[in-house]
């Protein structure tokens, strides 16, 4: 298991020479072009993270910001519950004791966490890390079969599960290695009366809490048992031996291309990546003063690294939204708190910009917003910046890279429709089909090397070998580099449509479609065609009832070369999406081709 931080870093040597913002000396033509864009704001070189492992970093933050509020869960009606940094620290200690002393887990054992955003999430995750165990982030919307696969594959011995999905676990539990089930509630850690009311509404009014016969223990009881068993001992011994090379997180991915694989993200990967995010965003983060809206699920790597880890270490207050769809459910959170930062995917920003309440009173204190997960549409970015008056920067990353690789810089001019520039200490190469680097301005597969690149896929050496070649992570995304070092994703390699031998990238067509005022969302796929090989088809959700295919086709003809114009435009009420709101072209293709 190699780790990025141990790899020789060419940029390290380079930055050492060019340190203190001096121009790179002659004879070093290899200075990556994007360094010029770092300006005086983004450091070219980052010192290694000062902590040996995540628990040390999290503990340091808790001691520094003790009485500050770390997390607030905001329900759709505005009801809320909060935990301070000190409370998260104490509760996670208790939970760590429970895992080690009551369940008898060992360092390195896997513990699954399966819940929407709520106060139990940070308590469980920090507790698992303090116990020296490995967090297995699990999407709560998984089907029982998907859960079973993930629990068997990861070898999870314990799980912290929200009661909303207890029946799903019950149906597969016997087939998994899980021995200990800890159950929690969305309003866990809420003030007494508010907790009972919120829970009562969920159980008896909305009836979303299923009956089950799981043998389990409640999170508060587990914490109490842990504290009793510890008898005053500290948690330090549980993770004392951990290093940057030890796995902290198994983040499953690739369920889209086949069977889900667990990306092994180490303490070093995550600590480095949060340093890199800090370096890219530090100009817009005031320590201890930020309020971050976390509508993306924390079980997704983007929210996990950026919202949770980076912002926790910056002393921010995280507003956790258990379920942001429909997007009206974040209204009270945006109204009742001075939100300064938010992260999201294109669909979230688009949805917000289509809400009357958001447009009428756009939040006033936003400093910056970050978009990722899928390509941002320029119409959405422009509309956001006009309405909110703060930058919406697009980033790029993968589960396999903890996740941040590139971000548009918050300072200076931004080149729209790009993923910005690589984070410090990150190297990028664009490779052609022949495996050699492509020429300037030509598209090639984006490959990444840096301390944030995963150690590999859990127990899948051949998959790892296919993905990480000589230390370079092959992303499967096709990109071009502009002369100034800004990167632009052209598309997913496998989503590319080939019309009579011409490459059509769905992103480009979708972007044009969504610029039309009557289009709310659009997805573009390739469908087999006898004459042309493939033809372009667009699936559109209308904003206004009177939109017609003819009008949209004319609009496309105006902005696109003929072969890129959709042959067929179909109107739909909705498009298939992932849990975070990424539009699933593959699902759409399956629906369309399977239904004919």
């Amino acid at each position, binding site marked *: 298991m190699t780790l990025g931080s141990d790899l020789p870093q060419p940029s390290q040597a380079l930055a050492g020479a060019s340190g203190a913002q001096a121009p790179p000396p002659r004879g070093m033509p290899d200075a990556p072009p994007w360094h010029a864009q770092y300006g005086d704001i983004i450091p070219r070189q980052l010192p290694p993270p000062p902590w040996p492992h995540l628990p040390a970093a999290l503990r340091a933050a808790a001691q520094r910001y003790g009485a500050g509020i770390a997390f607030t869960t905001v329900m759709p009606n505005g009801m809320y519950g909060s935990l301070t940094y000190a409370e998260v620290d104490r509760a996670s200690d208790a939970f760590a004791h429970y895992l080690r002393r009551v369940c008898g887990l060992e360092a390195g054992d896997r513990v699954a966490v399966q819940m929407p955003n709520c106060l139990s999430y940070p308590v469980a995750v920090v507790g698992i890390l303090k116990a020296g165990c490995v967090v297995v982030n699990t999407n709560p919307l998984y089907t029982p079969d998907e859960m079973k696969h993930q629990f068997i594959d990861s070898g999870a011995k314990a799980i912290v599960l929200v009661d909303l999905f207890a029946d799903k676990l019950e149906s597969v539990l016997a087939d998994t290695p899980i021995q200990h089930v800890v159950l929690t509630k969305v309003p866990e850690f809420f003030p007494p009366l508010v907790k009972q009311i919120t829970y009562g509404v969920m159980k008896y009014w909305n009836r979303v809490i299923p009956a089950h016969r799981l043998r389990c223990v409640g999170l508060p009881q587990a914490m109490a048992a842990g504290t009793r068993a510890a008898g005053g001992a500290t948690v330090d011994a549980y993770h004392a031996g951990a290093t940057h090379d030890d796995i902290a997180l198994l983040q499953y991915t690739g369920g889209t291309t086949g069977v889900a694989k667990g990306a092994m993200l180490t303490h070093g990967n995550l600590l480095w990546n949060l340093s890199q995010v800090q370096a890219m965003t530090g100009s817009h983060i005031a320590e201890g003063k930020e309020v971050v809206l976390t509508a993306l699920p924390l079980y997704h790597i983007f929210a996990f690294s950026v919202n949770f880890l980076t912002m926790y270490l910056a002393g921010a207050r995280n507003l956790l939204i258990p379920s942001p769809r429909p997007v009206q459910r974040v209204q009270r959170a945006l109204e009742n708190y001075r939100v300064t930062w938010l992260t999201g995917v294109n669909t979230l920003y688009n949805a917000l910009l289509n809400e009357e309440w958001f447009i009428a009173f756009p939040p006033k204190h936003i400093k910056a917003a970050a978009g990722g997960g899928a390509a941002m549409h320029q119409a959405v970015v422009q509309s956001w910046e006009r309405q909110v008056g703060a930058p919406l920067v697009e980033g790029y990353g993968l589960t396999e890279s903890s996740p941040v690789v590139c971000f548009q810089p918050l300072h200076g001019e931004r080149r729209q429709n790009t993923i910005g520039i690589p984070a410090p200490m990150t190297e990028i190469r664009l490779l052609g089909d022949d495996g050699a680097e492509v020429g300037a301005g030509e598209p090639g597969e984006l490959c990444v090397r840096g301390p944030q690149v995963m150690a590999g896929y859990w127990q899948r050496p051949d998959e790892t070998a296919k993905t990480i070649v000589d230390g370079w992570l092959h992303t499967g995304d096709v990109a071009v580099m502009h002369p100034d070092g800004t990167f632009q994703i052209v598309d997913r390699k496998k989503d590319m449509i080939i019309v009579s031998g011409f490459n059509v990238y769905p992103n480009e067509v979708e972007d044009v479609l969504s610029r039309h005022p009557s289009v709310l969302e659009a997805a573009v796929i390739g469908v087999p065609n006898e004459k042309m090989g493939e033809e372009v088809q667009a699936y559109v959700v209308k904003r206004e009832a009177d939109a017609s295919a003819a009008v949209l086709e004319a609009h496309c003809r105006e902005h696109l070369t003929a072969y890129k114009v959709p042959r067929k435009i*179909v*109107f*739909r009420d909705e498009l298939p999406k992932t849990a975070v709101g990424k539009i699933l072209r593959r699902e759409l293709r399956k629906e*369309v081709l399977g239904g004919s």
Partner: protein
Amino acid sequence: MLTELETKLLGILMIIIMFGMGSSLTFKDFAIAFRKPHAILVGMLCQYGLMPFIAFSLAVLLRLPPEYVVGLVLIGCMPGGTTSNIFTYFSKGRLSLSILMTVCSTLMAIVAVPLTLGLYSRGLEGDWGIPPSEITKLLFVLLVPTLLGIALRKFNANAGAVMELVGSVFGVLVIVFLLASWIPRNWALLMSTGGSVYFVAIALGLFGFAFGYLLSRLMRIDSIRARTISMETGIQNGPLAILIVSMTFLDERQALVLLIPILYSIFIVLTSTAITFYYRWLTLREEQARDRAKIGLIGAGA
């Protein structure tokens, strides 16, 4: 007759209900809603244009004596009741519109109730009229908890949401309180009361539902919103009318005037329940039709 203690208790309950109702939304919600005021304006037209007129027409057509007319017209002029929100929720209507209409009509009541009541009770003989200044005073007192509630929702969402719930619970308690305390004592009166009184007490709500829906559709409101407005139009703040009567008529006339407001308050629970089931069925049917259309579209797209 309500005893003095009962009147006071009813007054306190009303203050709590109004506070809870106010807590259901923030001032910003108003500002946002009034950017597209069409539905809410139609709703207010139904509330203060249609309902008082229906009440008055029923009184005229059935040639009711003045002691009944005053109770009936008073109910017709009342703002929307808080229970409408619960029924709207269960009927799968637009809860936000329902809440907004209830709070809006309550805030407007201080002007609208004396105006409409004055207009439709002009012809009343003798001293059966209710002095508008008394109503204004009472509504002003109730305006304070409503506004405090609205402020609380913004200031502390937890306390606001809890108060909203407490208000709804008390809204139901008031009806239970009436059933338990008033009916047994007035059994003889209820037995000797003519059928026309029962008829108008039930018909007012039903006509409110029907004409509220028709007028909304006529004003180009979509069917789901029209059903919400219909529900809101039919369901009046009965307990508020009872409070007004018991504070205005302090002699033996009170029992007669109270008859229609109390009967209305009891029967509206039953009729609303029936309408809720009907509207819920309609909404589900529309949703299914839309789903079928969607599946058809996917088939066509392939």
